[in-house]
């Protein structure tokens, strides 16, 4: 008893010490924050004979003491733009994108681990708890090697900046000087926590220590999220600078520099995007392992793993378009030109490609769910209705991807009689597209509801009423979304923009209310048969791989769009890009470059998967014949 209490005290002390150590970098950096505000001001005052120069914040419109140098006016030459015999921008693009892929992955996976480990801790069923624990461990194992690669790619990125864009990087690091070391030290904290979390898994698997272990995952994720927020502040600053005057001189308020107009929407969008991407990559890993499995037991485990990863990824994918919508709204509010360049002008074609990718994500998800219903006895009753869901999805998708200005030959243009098609041109505007995507998401929710009740029959007394209510609810939701999409053509633009709120509200009501109602109805439901894990078609696994590839491609695309919208600015309206590459690439070149980045990422992540499998092979695995319908058991110990 005494020993147990001693262990508890020791572990609490260890956790407190860890938290203190993690906070240390911030505390150490605090004086530098203060110095960052005052010391240069003091220097400036000395130089100008006690005269303090003040500047006006370009965004916050507040006055501040000038403490930084103006943004350099670069010229094309070896001093500002040294180069190899290759386009520097493309090299930077590659380094940045690879770092971002891995960064997103290693930030997302620990969040999954935290959720799954928590589910394992609170689940009363011991076998299920063990499965969750094994799954969380499998997840973190995958991310560990990826973590080292992220750090290496981060180093490569910084060297690329220093070598090819020294003037720009020097300016940016000068602006962010007060938080630069916090960022670096937080990386140390992140690494330390991750290693303790991973290597302490077995030692802390029981009782109170498990809670301590779980707490570490919370800390790990807090650090990871803060790291990402800091990185986001740089791109936020480049797009919508604040905290500097018109010449780009730092005005001493680091919060203004960080908290720019687009920082918060970027943060939200990136958290959701990372999670959806992480889920996609883990699902692809599970699909790859499923397809390569030799035993039914392995297939059952990886089928289950793929399902959980997909469900987590899609849970974050569903709100992602709404977060994107908020980001675009803020972009328009910040600079109308930027918004038009993105969605109506130079980059509008890329948004059509983006819509195509979003559609692929949702189509793949639906397809996977329909395939997954094949491993449940009793789900056959839904199969004959799937064709109608396909029709609804296809209609929504076609509306969603229709360009307003179509690609056509001059002969086609003349035959059509104008730049816009009188029928299909109407699908090219926002009102129709909002309707299209909301129809797609609502259909995905419906597929999920069908999946959740696939092998069950509700036993509650009001089951019939509940089913009718759910049917009417979905029908009304579709009607409302489509009605608002049509109505949007007849009202002023500012009101039309507001219509997206009831449309989104309708979709989200379906999501939350229908899920909740379905859960209540299915509580204690009669099971028509077990879920036969592993008995799923190979097509479903290709759908998961498709899902992950589409995520990767879309991330590359959106990163390119976000970066390109600055056009010929390093820092929008503050520091001009005077390199020979200050032009926007053609759509074809950008698409090829994104595809190359995607291919490179998948080749390297396959290497990471392979490394992970090397460790697993060392553990002897009993080759047992799988029992159809049995719960998948952990395939290896850690």
């Amino acid at each position, binding site marked *: 008893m005494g020993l147990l209490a001693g262990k508890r005290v020791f572990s609490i002390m260890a956790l407190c010490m860890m938290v203190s150590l993690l906070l240390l970098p911030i505390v150490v950096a605090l004086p530098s924050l203060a110095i960052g505000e005052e010391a240069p001001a003091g220097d400036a005052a000395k130089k100008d004979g006690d005269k303090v120069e003040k500047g006006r914040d370009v965004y916050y419109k507040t006055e501040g003491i000038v403490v930084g140098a103006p943004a350099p006016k670069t010229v094309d030459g070896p001093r500002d733009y040294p180069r190899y015999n290759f386009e520097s921008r493309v090299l930077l693009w590659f380094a940045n994108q690879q770092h971002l892929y891995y960064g997103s992955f290693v930030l997302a996976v620990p969040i999954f681990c935290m959720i799954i480990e928590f589910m394992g801790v609170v689940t009363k069923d011991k076998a299920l708890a063990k499965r969750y624990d094994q799954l969380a461990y499998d997840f973190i194992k995958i991310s560990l090697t990826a973590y080292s690669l992220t750090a290496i790619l981060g180093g490569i990125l910084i060297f690329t900046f220093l070598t090819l864009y020294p003037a720009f990087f020097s300016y940016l690091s000068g602006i962010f000087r007060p938080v630069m070391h916090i960022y670096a030290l937080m990386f140390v904290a992140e690494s330390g926590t991750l290693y303790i979390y991973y290597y302490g898994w077995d030692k802390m698997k029981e009782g109170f220590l498990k809670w301590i272990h779980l707490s570490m995952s919370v800390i790990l994720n807090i650090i990871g999220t803060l790291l990402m927020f800091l990185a986001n502040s740089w791109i936020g600053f480049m797009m919508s600078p604040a905290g500097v005057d018109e010449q780009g001189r730092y005005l001493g308020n680091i919060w203004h520099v960080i908290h720019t107009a687009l920082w918060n929407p970027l943060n939200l969008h990136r958290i959701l995007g990372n999670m959806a991407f992480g889920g996609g990559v883990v699902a692809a890993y599970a699909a790859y392992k499923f397809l390569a499995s030799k035993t039914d037991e392995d297939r059952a485990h990886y089928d289950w793993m793929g399902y959980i990863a997909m469900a987590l990824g899609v849970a974050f994918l569903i709100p992602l378009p709404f977060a994107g919508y908020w980001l675009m709204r803020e972009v*328009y*509010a910040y600079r*109308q*030109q*930027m918004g*038009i*360049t993105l969605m*109506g*002008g*130079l980059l*509008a*074609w890329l948004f059509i490609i983006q819509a195509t990718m979003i559609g692929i994500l949702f189509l793949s998800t*639906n397809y996977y769910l*329909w395939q997954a219903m*094949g491993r449940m006895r009793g789900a056959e009753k839904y*199969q004959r209705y*799937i*064709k109608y869901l*396909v*029709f609804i*999805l*296809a*209609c929504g998708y*076609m509306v969603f*991807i229709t*360009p*307003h*200005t*179509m*690609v*056509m*030959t*001059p002969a*086609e*243009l*003349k*035959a*059509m*009689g*104008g*730049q*816009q*098609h*009188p*029928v*299909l*041109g*109407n699908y*090219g*505007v926002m009102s129709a597209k909002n309707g299209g995507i909301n129809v797609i998401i609502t259909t995905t929710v419906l597929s999920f509801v069908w999946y959740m009740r696939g092998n069950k029959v509700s036993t509650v007394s009001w089951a019939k009423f509940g089913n009718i209510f759910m049917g009417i609810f979905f029908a009304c939701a579709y009607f409302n979304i*489509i009605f608002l999409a*049509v109505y949007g*053509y*007849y009202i*002023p*633009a*500012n009101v039309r923009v507001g219509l997206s709120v009831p449309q989104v509200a309708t979709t989200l009501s379906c999501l939350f209310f229908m899920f909740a109602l379905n859960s209540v109805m299915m509580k204690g439901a009669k099971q028509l048969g077990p879920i036969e894990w592993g008995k799923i*078609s190979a*097509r479903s696994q290709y759908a998961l791989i498709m899902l992950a590839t589409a995520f990767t491609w879309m991330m590359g695309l959106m990163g390119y769009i976000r970066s390109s919208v600055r056009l010929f600015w390093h820092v929008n309206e503050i520091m001009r890009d005077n390199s020979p590459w200050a032009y926007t690439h053609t*759509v074809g070149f950008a698409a090829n470059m994104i595809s190359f980045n995607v291919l490179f990422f998948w080749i390297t992540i396959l290497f990471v998967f392979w490394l992970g499998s090397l460790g697993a092979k060392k553990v002897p695995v009993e080759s047992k014949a799988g029992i159809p319908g049995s719960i998948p058991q952990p395939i290896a110990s850690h």
Partner: protein
Amino acid sequence: MKALMSLGALIGVAGLLLLGGMVLDVVPSTYIRLVEGYMPIQMLLEVACYVIGFTGLSYTLNAMGMAIPRFWQGIGFWVFFLLYLKYRMYPPIPFSVRAMYGTVSLVAVFMWVSASEEDWQKFKQPIMNVLDAQTGGNRLLRYLYLVLLPILIGGFSFNAMMPKSEEPIELRTVHPAPPASTKVHGKTYTLQTSQNPYRVNPEGKYDQEFSNANIVEQGMGRLMKPNANPWDDKNQGYLKYVREGGEIFYQNCHFCHGDNLNGRGLHAFAFNPIPANFTDPGTIAQLQETFIFWRVSKGGIGLPNEGFPWASVMPPWEQHLTVDEIWKVVLFEYWHTGYYPRTWD
């Protein structure tokens, strides 16, 4: 249920006959008119009717013991949809869009026929039969495919590589991002905040709601609202300026932009691309009034870098009209099309 399915089958057969007539050029595409104002939703409803019709047809044929194999159902629906886009829709849809829709519908057909294992087996059975070539007919088909497929692919490749004499496709930025401000007749206008000075009520005060209430009705015919006739001499404020804008429009702009502001003026087809169609919901309805003011003032030569390839012959109207005249023309364009200018509040 049976009666409903029979009704569906009837719709399906009627639809197929109609489309067949259009493909063979016996029935014009305009036989069933696409009603202006409802065209986009009409197209979706038509396709939905076809889907219901085909479901009924399939059910009825199944009940009669003449079930269509799943393979041919899938291929048949896809071919139907391609023909529908090509022959039913008018004006003709550009190939790029038909290719997009064709790909989506192909994916949709695949999702449908492979949604369950049973359906997938049914669908791929004829393909497997040909590959296995257990019968003489299948063996012949397999040899045919062996010869025809490379020829087909070769033909496509040859066609794709062959130099074309027609003008190449040019991606064009129709609405380039506007500058933050524009200078017209010596005065600078900030595009995000400027307002049309003639959008005023009879008392002369700026009144967006008053002007919005007096624009023409959208939809069929674009009719004027009762008591909102700009050509009534007694009108003051907004409607009076709409009339003045209309006069300027018909003296200067309608030759290209057309009597109905649909981009089909007398000279429209001399240009490539033809002038902007203001009745389309994607042109002025999407933009701030100040954007139109900037475009009208600066014309084609004032397009920014982003407006590549600067394919506009519109003159810079600031050289021919006063600032007031430009604002009035813009006012008229919104009134006539029944659209509200974009605002950001």
